[in-house]
């Protein structure tokens, strides 16, 4: 399929922005900024899905672009904003975070992701195949973010960012999953976020803090 170069350039730009936003989240200490970065990442994701839909002619991707626009740019950030306002953790910061070391590990993770995705990307026939490595990198970077964070809210944002990476992987490798599956995944993510919201209140009520180092009592001694 001959691809208009400007479109493939745009998709590559979107992928690069996605990766950049992952690194930005990895190095961001403030929780409010994390939520905003997450919304930004959702917007980039939605835009690049729409561009892929336009260039490839896969019309069902417009629906997924719309779905991710509604869910990841509007609904989830709105829920998160309300949560952090109600919990009064808007200005909280992650204090125990060694940013330079995390960034270095992050770079290694990206190299690893590209190495892993290389043989698969060559098999792909989609216009977006070069971005599969980036999608995997976003997944792994979010994973890294979850490991390094001590606050419950940041861990959840890491979890949601991981889902963004997976969604991007599905778009770039295969032009998206069947619609019924995408709807199911979106529903699970939404319900999961709501449940986590309930959880935050339970954790706070019990421990007077959303710092997770309080809740490491259950271990084998």
């Amino acid at each position: 399929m001959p691809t208009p170069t400007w479109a493939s350039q745009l998709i590559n730009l979107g992928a690069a922005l996605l990766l950049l936003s992952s690194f930005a989240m990895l190095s961001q200490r403030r929780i409010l900024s994390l939520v905003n970065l997450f919304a930004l990442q959702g917007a980039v994701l939605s835009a690049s899905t729409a561009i892929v839909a336009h260039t490839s002619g896969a019309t069902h991707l417009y629906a997924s672009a719309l779905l991710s626009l509604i869910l990841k740019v509007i609904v989830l950030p709105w829920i998160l904003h309300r949560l952090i306002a109600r919990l009064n953790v808007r200005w909280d910061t992650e204090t125990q975070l060694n940013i330079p070391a995390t960034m270095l590990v992050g770079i290694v993770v990206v190299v690893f992701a590209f190495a892993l995705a290389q043989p698969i990307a060559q098999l792909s026939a989609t216009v977006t195949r070069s971005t599969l490595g980036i999608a995997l990198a976003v997944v792994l970077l979010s994973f890294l973010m979850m490991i390094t964070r001590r606050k419950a809210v940041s861990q959840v944002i890491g979890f949601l960012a991981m889902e963004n990476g997976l969604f991007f992987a599905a778009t770039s490798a295969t032009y998206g999953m069947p619609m019924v599956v995408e709807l199911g995944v979106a529903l699970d993510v939404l319900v999961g976020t709501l449940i986590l919201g309930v959880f935050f209140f339970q954790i706070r009520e019990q421990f007077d803090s959303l710092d997770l180092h309080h809740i490491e009592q259950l271990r084998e001694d």
Partner: protein
Amino acid sequence: MALLLLLAIPLAGSLALAVFGARRWAAELNAAFSIATFAAACALTARVIAEGPMLVAHEQFFVDPFNVFLIALTAFVGMTTSLFSRPYMRVEEAHGRVNRRRLRLYHSMYQLFCFTMLAALSTNNLGILWVAMEAATLSTVLLVSLYRTAASIEAAWKYFILCGVGIAQALFGTILLYFAAEKILGAEGSTALLWTHLDAVKGQLEPTVLGLAFVFLLVGYGTKVGLAPLHNWLPDAHAEGPTPISAVLSGLLLNVALYAVVRCKVLVDGATHSPLAGRLMMGFGLLSLVLAAFFLWRQRDIKRLFGYSSIEHMGIVTFAFGMGGPVANFAALLHMTVHSLTKSAIFFAAGHAAQTAGTQVMDDIRGLIVVSPTIGWGLMLGTLAILGVPPFGVFTSEFLVLVTAMREHAWATPILLLALALAFAAIFRRVQAMVFGDSQLKPLPHSPALLPVFAHLLLVLMLGVYIPPALAEWYRLAAKLIG
């Protein structure tokens, strides 16, 4: 039709109990819905016996020899657990650990959980399978933290995050699978995630992609199976949640997650023509078995002890599926069945034991047989069954696994035997001390429902000496299918 009912009843039950769950008769309503679900499962089973495998609803749902007995088992254990939960939750309410509002959540989510597991088992679409597995986690996570104690909230958080991350890996695996399949089956008509279609073309799927996909799928669903080293959530969630939930997590959820792994393994084996998938499963299985056997020695909480025992048994089943071949697969399927029956029976008895003693710390539970002979004997017999004492069914399946291991992978036999012996000693010395001896404990305010315990144990005993021909036939067909 029967399949539709099977899925519709628990879903309707979940909605009805979301409305009426706070009433006094909610527990009875819950049990009624579970009994109806089981009746639908029986009808479905009867149809499959009469007419053979079926494929319905635009091929989105199917029943074949591999999932039919798991569906029946899931509905059965779901029913007995709801019967057990009726007096159990009454006692918890009398002890002031839950209130009516939380019971509403509990009943509604219980039915939803049953629905997600039955959907995961009966769907033909690997994407829906993923969605249902994730929904199963979501529906139980608030149940693990039902008591709102510090420990239970921590357990639920761990459960959510670990299983959430795990299942995200499984989604990546599913995407890779779809990517490989789409090239053969095409994206139109979205048949590229239907297992039956994939199974038909598995020889043409790209081996490198499927190999990588399987690693992600095994890690992802393996987290839910409780395979070491991703098992951390399992003992916590089992110990801190209400006992009926421990029983269904151990007896059902682990099975369903393993079912998902095995379905994927069939496809991967067909594509790669190499023992990679099997070897991976053997490794993870053996590691879980050995690790759990050692951790069993350090447990002080009765439900944690049996949580680790579940890891051990899932390790055995995973190892057996990894070895492959008709005998090992047969043994693995049988072991899935008997483990699920026995372990839920043990949790029923252990839950009442903990209620009687007012604690889950094993050192403080003494002389159960004096206070309540049924609880004492239930726990003792269940323990003997799970430890593989003949003539219970667990002995049969473990024996078959050992025989196959001896013939095909002799190096693994001493490890298996050693781990089983370690586990035997660790569990038996604890349970013996709890069951026998003197006691000043008082009996429970509501008489415990121990009929499910003995019904389960009777079934396990029966499977040890006689397997019904229809079930044996399914095991054989499914074992052949798995390869």
